C-alpha cells in the first residue's frame, strides 16, 4: 500500500513537472476558462432569463461553467496517457516493479492539482465581474471539495478513454462528443425549465445538473434538495466504476 502511495506521488510529480515545460497546456487551464466565462456572461447573459432567486446571470452561470470546466480537466489525462502508450512509456512503466495502479492514480492526482488552479482562476474571474458568495465559508469550501472530487471522478473516465482510443486526436473528438452534450443539456447554462420536454427529462437526471445544483446550493444559497448528497454519490460512483476499469485496461495495455 505504501508502495502505491509513493509511486503515485512520483508519477504525479512527473506530470506536474511536464506541465511547466509545456506552457500551451497551462493556457488550457487558465486563459481558456476565463474566455468562456466572459463570452457567456457578456454574449448570452443578456438574453437568458434566470430565476428570481439569482441576482443576475453571473450568479447563475459561474457554478455551472466551473463544473463544465472541471469535467474537461481530465482531458489532459486522456491525451497524456494515449501519448505515453504510443511512445512506449507505458511499456516501460509496466516492466518496472512499481505499483500497478500508480501510473493512473498519479495522472489523476496531478489533474486534481491543475483543476484546483482552474477553480481558483475561475472564481477570481467571477469575483472580478461581480459574482458574490451567499453562504458560509464552510459551505464555500465544501463546494470546492465537491468540485474537485467530481473532477477527479471524470479524470478516471478520461483515463479509460485515453487507454482505449487509437490516437490523441480520437481521444479529443470522442471526449468532446461525450462531454459537450452532457454539460449543455444540464442546468449549467440555462434554467432546465426553458428546454423542450424531452431534453428537460434528460437534464433533470443528468449528473451535471445535480452537481451544478449542489454547487449553487453551497455557494449562492439556492434550494439544495438532495443535490448535495446526490452529487457526492455520483462522484463516488463514477470513481468506483471507472477506476477499476481503467486499471484493468492498463494492466493489459499493449503499446505497439
Amino acid at each position, binding site marked *: 500500500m505504501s508502495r502505491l502511495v509513493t*509511486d503515485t506521488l512520483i508519477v504525479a510529480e512527473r506530470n506536474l513537472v511536464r506541465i511547466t*515545460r509545456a506552457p500551451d497546456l497551462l493556457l488550457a487551464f487558465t486563459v481558456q476558462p476565463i474566455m468562456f466565462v466572459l463570452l457567456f456572461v457578456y454574449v448570452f447573459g443578456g438574453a437568458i432569463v434566470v430565476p428570481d432567486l439569482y441576482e443576475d446571470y453571473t450568479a447563475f452561470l459561474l457554478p455551472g461553467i466551473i463544473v463544465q470546466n472541471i469535467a474537461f480537466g481530465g482531458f489532459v489525462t486522456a491525451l497524456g496517457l494515449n501519448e505515453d502508450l504510443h511512445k512506449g*512509456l507505458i511499456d*516501460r512503466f*509496466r516492466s*518496472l*516493479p512499481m505499483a500497478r495502479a500508480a501510473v493512473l492514480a498519479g495522472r489523476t492526482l496531478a489533474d486534481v492539482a491543475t483543476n484546483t488552479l482552474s477553480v481558483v482562476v475561475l472564481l477570481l474571474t467571477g469575483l472580478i465581474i461581480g459574482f458574490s458568495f451567499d453562504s458560509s465559508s464552510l459551505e464555500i469550501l465544501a463546494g470546492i471539495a465537491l468540485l474537485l472530487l467530481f473532477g477527479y471522478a471524470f479524470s478516471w473516465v478520461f483515463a479509460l478513454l485515453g487507454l482505449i482510443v487509437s490516437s490523441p486526436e480520437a481521444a479529443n473528438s470522442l471526449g468532446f462528443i461525450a462531454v459537450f452534450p452532457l454539460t449543455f443539456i444540464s442546468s449549467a447554462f440555462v434554467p432546465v425549465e426553458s428546454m423542450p420536454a424531452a431534453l428537460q427529462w434528460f437534464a433533470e437526471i443528468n449528473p451535471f445538473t445535480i452537481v451544478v445544483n449542489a454547487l449553487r446550493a453551497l455557494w449562492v444559497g439556492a434550494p439544495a434538495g438532495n443535490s448535495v448528497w446526490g452529487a457526492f454519490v455520483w462522484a463516488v460512483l463514477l470513481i468506483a466504476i471507472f477506476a477499476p476499469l481503467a486499471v484493468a485496461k492498463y494492466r493489459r495495455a499493449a503499446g505497439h
Partner: protein
Amino acid sequence: MTTKATDQARVGSAERGSAASEPAIKVSGLKKSFGEIRALDGVDLEAATGTVLGLLGPNGAGKTTAVRVLTTLLRPDAGEVRVAGLDVVRDAAKLRERIGLAGQYAAIDENLTGQENLVMVGRLYGMTRASATARATELLAQFDLTDAAKRPAKTYSGGMRRRLDLAAALVAKPPVLFLDEPTTGLDPRSRLSVWTTIEELVAEGRTVLLTTQYLDEADRLADTIAVIDKGRVIATGTPDALKDRVGGERLEVHLTEPAQAPIAAKTLAPISDEPPSIELDAVKLTVQRRSGIIIEAVRRLDEAGVGIDDIALRRPTLNDVFLALTGHAAEDSELEETA
C-alpha cells in the same frame, strides 16, 4: 572460471543462487496468438548467464512479441518461460526487479530532462531520491549525456534519446537486459556507439537478449543467434555456424550488355561455389575466398570480352540467410507484428 565469477558478482546479488544451476533465459514451447494470428508458435530459446542471445528476423516475425512475453508485458498462451531463474507469469512482480527493457521506441518523457527521466525510473524501482539521483548522474556520465542532463529530452538527437532509453533500462543494474531493435532508425555513427555500449554491458557480466533485423548487428554482438520467422525459430547457432549454412560472400557483376550475361556466367562459374545466377543485367556468384576475388573476376570477364558496368562484393545479408534457410526472402514475410 574465476573471471566469470567476478563478473557475476559485479552485476549484483539478484542473480546469485539460480545462476549456477539455470540459464539466464530459458524458453520452451512458447506460444502466443492474437485472434487468428499465431505470433509465436512454439518457440524455444536459451541464453547462458553473461552471454548475448540475438533474435534475428524480419518485421512481423514475432521478435517483439517474444520480448513482451519475456518482460512480463504479455501473458503467454502456452509454454514455460523463465528469466533470471523466475517464471514470467508466476513470479512477474519479482522478475520486474531483475530486468531492464529498452524498446524500439525511446520510451522517455520528452518534457522531462535526461536527469529527471532517470531519477523518476530509479525511484519507481524503489530507490530513494538521493540514491536515484546519484545513479542518474553516474549513468549520464557513462552514456555521454552529462552536458545534456539538464535539458528536456525533446531537444535530444535520435542517438541521444536511444542512449537515454538504454540508460533508463540500466538504472537498477538488472542482470538480464532486453533490447528490442536497439539501433533501428539510427545513423551509422550512433549505431556504432550503441554497439560499443552493449559490448561494455556484456563485459560487466550481464545477459542480453537483443532483437535485430540486421545480420551484421547480430554477428557483432551475439554469442548465439536464433533466427525467427513466422513465430518459429528456424535456426539457432553461433554467428559463424549460421554464416556457414548461408555460404560465403556474394559477388555481383552488372554488365554493360545484358545479352552477355550467359557468357559472363559461364566465365565466372569456376570461381563460384554454386552455379552463378542471372538477374536482368546482373550475374551473381557465391564465393568463399574474399581477397583478390574482384581482380580475378574482372580479369576473366575482360579476357572473355564482357563489358562491366559495376562490380561489388558484399557480405551475406539477412535476406541471404532467409533465402538459404527458408527459400523465401525476408521481405516476403507478411505477418504483421501485432503487439
